[in-house]
């Protein structure tokens, strides 16, 4: 087998340049939106006193989960010793760092007082999962940067496995912490369950692989590298397993809830008559985001890079739908304020909240995604993250 060599991206491909400028513009718009939200106050968003976390949080959690899952390929190559995954390990690590950066940027800029980030980093209440997450997220970035360093420094190659193990354990704890944000909430029928933790772990694996596919195949195309068919097949099968895993845990979660009389209300709302939420769940998440991608990942007729990217994009859209239903649908449903009574007054109680995302929220979320992608695209031009080509693609320019 040829010795794997890595290189920087030439950056001469038109697609690369266009995307770079597009991302810069989107980040600019996102920053303007964030400034608008901070200077005016959150009344300019669709979030209110009932739906307190909205579209920015959907994007933020998507990015954070993808960051954890994107490290998968690197983990398999280092921790489980599968050298055939090695060409893609560096990209995997890079994506983990950049996606997390994008996610944290959205989260911080949506705070009511983003100027108090220093307070968030100096005052801690350790019974709060959020406080733990501050350490888990920043620590993860540090660990992965070290991981990348040992991968890319010949003298440190001996440490790749041990750092890889640390990174793997760290990201499992990190994703558990993200799931626990919701799982530890006793107040809401949509969240108060420990299954949130393994569910989020599997979502991170599924979404992380999907983002990894889209980024890697695109950049390899610019670089003229073709992922070996055998490796591609293994990774696609793995993606299918993760998507099925998420579907299984979701089915388990909802079935269990349906058995509990006091949870039937939220189930009916999210799955049957809640308006936009059942549509997003069944059409967006289950059909387009899970069933069809599993089929396309496993069926050899859909094994070309173009199809794989399409399938991965469908998983991403399905994941966003799923997060939207979970985060926002879970808040839109009214609380059970007083046991034994139903609430008859509107406004705050007894009614479903109609949340509509606004442009500033969308701009902020897209800005975070763009930030992650921009840093990735710049990093691959500076440092050798991309695998080199052994057989050039027809019509590609070799770097």
């Amino acid at each position, binding site marked *: 087998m040829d010795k794997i060599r890595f290189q920087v991206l030439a950056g001469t491909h038109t697609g690369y340049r266009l995307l770079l400028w597009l991302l810069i513009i989107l980040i600019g718009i996102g920053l303007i939106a964030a400034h608008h939200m901070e200077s005016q106050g959150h009344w300019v968003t669709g979030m209110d006193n009932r739906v307190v976390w909205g579209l920015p949080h959907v994007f933020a959690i998507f990015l954070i989960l993808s960051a954890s899952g994107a490290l998968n390929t690197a983990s398999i190559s280092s921790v489980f010793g599968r050298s055939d995954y090695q060409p893609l390990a560096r990209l995997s690590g890079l994506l983990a760092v950049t996606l997390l950066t994008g996610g944290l940027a959205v989260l911080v800029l949506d705070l009511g007082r983003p100027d108090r980030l220093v307070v968030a980093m100096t005052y801690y*209440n350790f019974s709060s999962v*959020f406080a733990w997450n501050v350490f888990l997220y920043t620590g993860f970035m540090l660990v992965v940067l070290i991981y990348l360093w040992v991968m890319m420094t010949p003298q440190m190659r001996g440490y790749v496995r041990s750092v890889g193990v640390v990174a793997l354990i760290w990201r499992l704890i990190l994703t558990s912490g993200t799931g626990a944000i919701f799982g530890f909430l006793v107040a809401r029928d949509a969240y108060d369950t420990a299954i949130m933790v393994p569910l989020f772990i599997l979502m991170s694996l599924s979404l992380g692989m999907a983002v990894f596919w889209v980024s890697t195949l695109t950049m390899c195309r610019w670089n003229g590298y073709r992922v070996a068919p055998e490796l591609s097949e293994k990774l696609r099968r793995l993606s299918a397993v993760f998507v099925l895993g998420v579907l299984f845990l979701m089915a388990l979660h909802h079935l269990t809830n349906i058995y509990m009389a006091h949870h039937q209300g939220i189930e009916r709302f999210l799955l049957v008559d809640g308006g936009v939420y059942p549509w997003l769940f069944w059409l967006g998440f289950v059909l387009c985001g899970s069933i069809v991608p599993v089929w396309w990942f496993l069926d050899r007729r859909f094994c070309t890079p173009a199809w794989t990217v399409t399938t991965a994009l469908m998983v991403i859209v399905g994941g966003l739908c799923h997060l939207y239903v979970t985060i926002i649908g879970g808040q839109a449903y009214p609380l059970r*304020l*007083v046991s034994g009574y139903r609430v008859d007054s509107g406004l705050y109680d007894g009614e479903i909240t109609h949340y509509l995302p606004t442009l500033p929220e969308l701009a902020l979320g897209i800005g975070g995604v763009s930030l992650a992608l921009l840093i990735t695209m710049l990093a691959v031009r500076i440092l050798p993250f991309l695998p080199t080509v052994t057989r050039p693609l027809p019509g590609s320019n070799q770097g």
Partner: protein
Amino acid sequence: MTDPANKPRRRFLGRTGASTALLALVPGVKLVDLALAKDEDEPASVKTRWGLLVDANRCVTDCQACVSACEDEHALAKTGTARLDPQWIRKVELVDESNDRSLSIPLMCQHCEDAPCVDVCPTGASFKRADGMVLVDKHTCIGCRYCMMACPFNARSFVHGEVTGQKSYSPRGKGTVESCTLCVHRVDQDRAPACVESCAVDGHGALTFGDLNDSESTVSKTVRSQPHRELRPDLALNTGVRYRGV
């Protein structure tokens, strides 16, 4: 600067004056139990646990006296959009699922012993004071709204825009979370919360405030011997606010 010699005298006069006034308004019903005096330089003590008793039998359906009193006391200006408005206390119309009986109760922060909002706050801004009040330290609140997600009663509000005209004893500002403080500024001066006072003044007397740890107080006696409930007993929060007639 207050002359220290005046403090005990002022306190005595203030307490006597307040209790006389309140008793005079609704004779025969003891509405407010004033706790042992707290000197202004003393910290709040665990010996006290503040409680609020709501009697739904006395609460009138269309009355908003407690809500208006709270809004006036803390200068809670409306925003023009109902869902963005601060609501530290609100009236909730309930219907008993077993017999369709309808009633009305005021709902505010329940000041839980085991408050979910205190557990989830990353900076510790949402905290429980020694005497049981659950408050927000707005100096350290970063506006993440996690406490609002965690509250089983939707008791907290987020300040969605610039605030002006604040009262000196009730600071509030854009980007932080707020909720009923049990009128801590009044309680620390041995006065009853604004909602309790207004309900008494209006003649309903549905709200009683007192020290749950003081065996002589009405709230404490009721909790120990009369039927009453928390709103969500299944959550075992051990709330400071208790309800009768619900």
